[in-house]
């Protein structure tokens, strides 16, 4: 399943609808949904927010992977930015030192099972995999 989305946060509801349709079609466990929704949103929002030089739509592709799902987001005509090398957030810092922002990519890296970045011909593609724990299948 694949679909293109314009560079607008209002598209988040349509990404959720796509994910819902894919999960229903493939009978994937509902327990994976929140992580997939979170990773998809954070990566999409990151592209929209920081790859401002592009007007191209962002392509999202979903395919089954083991007991879970593999999701790719491709951004066209952009500079290289590897989200897998995002800075570490000190989640143990006291309130006075915490600032809004920076948590999105940290959460993605923490919660997905694997993540891969590739950059070629000004195309930035990030792929993540979420799989159900085998004992829960």
């Amino acid at each position, binding site marked *: 399943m694949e679909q293109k989305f314009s560079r607008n946060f209002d598209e*988040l509801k349509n990404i959720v609808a796509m994910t819902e349709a894919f999960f229903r079609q493939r009978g994937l466990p509902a327990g994976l949904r929140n992580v997939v929704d*979170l990773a998809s949103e954070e990566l999409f*929002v990151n592209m929209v927010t920081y790859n401002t030089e592009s007007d191209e739509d962002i392509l999202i592709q979903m395919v089954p992977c083991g007991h879970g799902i593999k999701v790719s987001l491709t951004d066209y005509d952009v500079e290289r930015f590897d989200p897998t090398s995002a800075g570490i957030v000190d*989640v*143990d*810092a006291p*309130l006075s030192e915490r600032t809004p922002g920076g948590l*999105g990519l940290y959460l993605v890296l*923490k919660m997905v099972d694997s993540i891969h970045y590739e950059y070629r011909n000004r195309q930035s593609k990030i792929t993540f995999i979420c799989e159900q724990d085998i004992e829960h299948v």
Partner: protein
Amino acid sequence: MFEIELTDTGHIAVVGRLDAAQAVKAQEFLDQIDGQCVLDLSRLDYISSAGLGVLLKTHKRLMDSHQGIKLINVNHHIHDIFRYSGFDKLFEIVPASS
């Protein structure tokens, strides 16, 4: 779907999906709150980092006057997000009963 509203109990109900598209609406509502703030998350299905940012910004503002946010009826998934984010060390959190 996302809603944020004051309830009859004086708590603030946060309902639906608090994502980047809804963060401005949540922030505008919470910017008007002063004093102790209790957020009832029993009907919150989803929160992303944009929503976490709203909670953190509001909590810091209210803590300046020694108040802050208390999060109640937090379900398992949302609690996981708080734990991964270190928010369980910053906020008073009451999990959902079941």
